[in-house]
């Protein structure tokens, strides 16, 4: 299975994503933001980091870079595009997924483990996963998901919420919401379910000596789903 990770100026989880994808059997290529064409890929990943220093609005400048037109076309033709953290911020700026990401509620960067609950497994990312509750890692300053009432209704009607912040029992309540996201939303799919944006970093949870191993489950499953 072929994957492509896009490197923008200021991306800093691109290598981590490359390591993770290769560890679980993807043939991964690193793609420079200034390239025109995406190579043939089964999966395109917009990695975390601070593309363009997070200046203006997170992800806004990267969403205008050259390669993004190909990524948008790829997504519109049904290709799998996954944005993690800053990648999620870029996705919302392109309009591929609805909503925006505001500054965290307490105006502080947060780096810690959180629990998330899968809402919908009827998509290529989570299909066949046995567990519903995952321990993942977040590290962001702008992860406070927001959308209008109408958008929220549409998102829910279309089953577009990918994951919610919760506790270890899967309870989705305000006290387990690390950043003030509306309805504890941690990740969103597009209507067609081929584009996923989420704040948690599965690539930081791929070894028992790191923060945990739930990221491994995610990547192994993703590879099998694409095969």
């Amino acid at each position: 299975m072929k994957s492509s990770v896009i490197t923008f100026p200021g991306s800093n989880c691109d290598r981590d994503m490359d390591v993770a994808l290769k560890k679980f059997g993807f043939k991964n290529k690193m793609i420079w933001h200034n390239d025109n064409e995406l190579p043939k890929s089964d999966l395109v990943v917009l990695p975390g980091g601070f593309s363009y220093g997070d200046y203006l609005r997170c992800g806004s400048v990267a969403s205008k870079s050259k390669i993004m037109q190909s990524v948008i076309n790829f997504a519109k033709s049904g290709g799998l595009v996954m944005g993690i953290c800053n990648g999620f911020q870029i996705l919302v700026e392109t309009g591929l997924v609805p909503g925006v990401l505001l500054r965290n509620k307490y105006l502080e960067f947060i780096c810690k483990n959180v629990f998330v609950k899968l809402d919908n497994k009827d998509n290529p990312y989570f299909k066949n996963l046995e567990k519903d509750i995952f321990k993942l890692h977040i590290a962001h300053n702008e992860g406070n998901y927001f959308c209008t009432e109408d958008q929220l209704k549409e998102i829910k009607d279309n089953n577009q919420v990918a994951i919610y912040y919760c506790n270890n029992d899967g309870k989705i309540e305000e006290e387990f919401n690390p950043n003030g996201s509306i309805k504890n939303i941690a990740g969103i799919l597009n209507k067609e379910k081929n584009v996923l944006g989420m704040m948690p970093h599965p690539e930081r949870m791929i070894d028992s000596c790191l923060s945990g191993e739930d990221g491994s489950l995610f990547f192994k499953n993703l590879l099998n789903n694409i095969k």
Partner: protein
Amino acid sequence: MQVNEKLAVEHGLKVEEYKLICELLKRTPNLTELGIFSAMWNEHCSYKSSRLHLKKLPTKGKKVIQGPGENAGVIDIEDGDAIVFKIESHNHPSFIEPYQGAATGVGGIMRDVFTMGARPIANLNSIHFGSTQHKKTKNLLRGVVHGIGGYGNCIGVPTIGGQTCFDRSYNGNILVNAMTLGLVKKNKIFYSKAAGLNKPVIYVGSKTGRDGIHGASMASASFDDKIEEKKPTVQVGDPFTEKLLLEACLELMAGDSIIAIQDMGAAGLTSSSIEMASKGKLGIEINLDKVPCRETKMTPYEIMLSESQERMLIVLENGKENLAKKIFDKWGLDFAIIGKTTDTKNIELFFNSEQVAKIPINILVENSPMYDRKWKKTKLPKKNKIQKKDLKNLKILDVLKKMISNPNVCSKKWIWEQYDHTVMGDTIQKPGGNSGVVRVHGTNKAIAAAVDSSAVYCWAHPLTGGKQIVCESWRNLISVGAKPVAITNCLNFGSPEKEENMGEFVECVEGIGEASKYLAFPVVSGNVSFYNQTKEIGIKPTPVIGGVGLIKDYTKMITMNFKSEGNLVLVIGKTEGHLDQSLFARTILDEKNGPPPEINLFNEKNNGETILKLIEDNYIKSAHDVSLGGILMGVSKMCIEGNVGIEIKKPDSLLSEFEYFFSEDQGRYIIEISKSDIKKVTSILEKNAVHYDEIGTLVGKSVSFNEKTIVPVDELKSYNNNWLKDYMR
């Protein structure tokens, strides 16, 4: 502008220094030249008050590839790998503008490390603030933490550890010290020594602006006719550009185009160009018209003294200019050929086709002043007799609860959760433990690092204090199973022109030297920050030690959280009951006099090496060194982290329970072992003549001394975790 004595003094030079300049030059310097001298001869660049004493530090060792004198120190970690590391202060800028001051401090130290060809793999920091009651403390702390995070997080280097202290001596002068470690192949280390004639000198990175220009306000006033805006003296950091600069430099370094490279830090273009030429025993010629400037009408003086961030100076091989330019263009960075190396041994500057400065480099470097400043020895204070009656009314649990939530003991999670500590995917021990640990990417090795200071001990007796911090750093590394390799130091003191402050410096350095020599734990890099004072009153002497150790097999790394019920807890090292200068004496008894705990270097070494042996043989389940607050603070934190309780029984001795549990005798560790291993462990300890006490068994969810004296771990946890969070919200 007329250069004279008065202007020289306004540039921070002494009258004698100015006379020496005129004598060496055999003429009066022009303004640009005066600026260059003032930058090269100030304390920061010339180490004129400290050089004499720093020479006494041990800087060599089997594992040392590069000691002090380069951008950073380098140690060998085998298999062709090396670690580049250094700590540096950014105290004054952080007090004026905490966010930008701290951010640019982090940026500066990372440049020092990647200048040598190393990719930064970990950041640490040591920050000291005034009393928590002081009105400025909260805002300064918030600003500094945001600044450190803002820069480090953006670059994508994990912040794996640190230290935060509060003491009123920092009310008007906070300390912000940042440390970076980088990984490099031994055969791909880059140095700042230029070599060869007519080699192109290249400027890369951000443009030059009027940031941080020193000099007197009057001197700078003349550069702009309408000075409605006061010239900025604090630089603004641009981590995004630094990230690009890092990637571009490493890309260029992969080839063989670079002869020498130096970052433009303090005194910018001046010190970087002079240092490269001086080390290569060459001259250098720079055409200032070619320097990329952010603002119009910048003068030679301003260009040479600007401290704009995120800039580098490179001496390239001939013919590699286009290749280098392509790389910097790709990353969207400025690139300009601004000069060349010469055989004149002079620095020569041209502007508008005119020569604007010409100074022999040896005058600037070798002839820079060195002072043997007067200093005063600190006598060892007399020991306090703490009376039994002082302790009579105290209850151990009250003391425990009070101390575990003390600002200097409590959990600093509020701080380190704002730092990305997991990016790069190799952080295997997060902040909050004895040391931060990162894997060497793609290998079985890991690097442990810790930063420590003990200003109270150094203030009470600088010589002992100096020794103590080296030992504490050593213990923090040992406690995670790392073999200590080398240290970097950041020496924060008051004015060297005051005998007391200078004495504190001299004796702390002596103590650091003595301990690091005995422990074969050499100093490979460092930085001195003097004049940390407000209204003539210096801060407590605060040398900060950054220790680095190697774990050969990271699966053997030890953490401090207690692991499982039924296991035994031992205290390694002898408890003598030394309470003077302890947290207990200072905060509970309000007793601020007396000597700090004594350092026995033989015991330090022996105890530490024995612990490493026990770790190697897989006997140790968790470990923690005994430091601030004594045994009970250590045990409580291990319980909190492990979420498990302990039944404590104080060993029989003549010491009262307060002396036993709260004294701060040195060279001690707390370890957890399995019950079935006790015989084997104690036989190793006895064979090595290491003292130990068995102090309890892990059980339940409470810390208990007897049926009546018992406190739930959860309660201790909330005292420990909530203090800082509540203070900041």
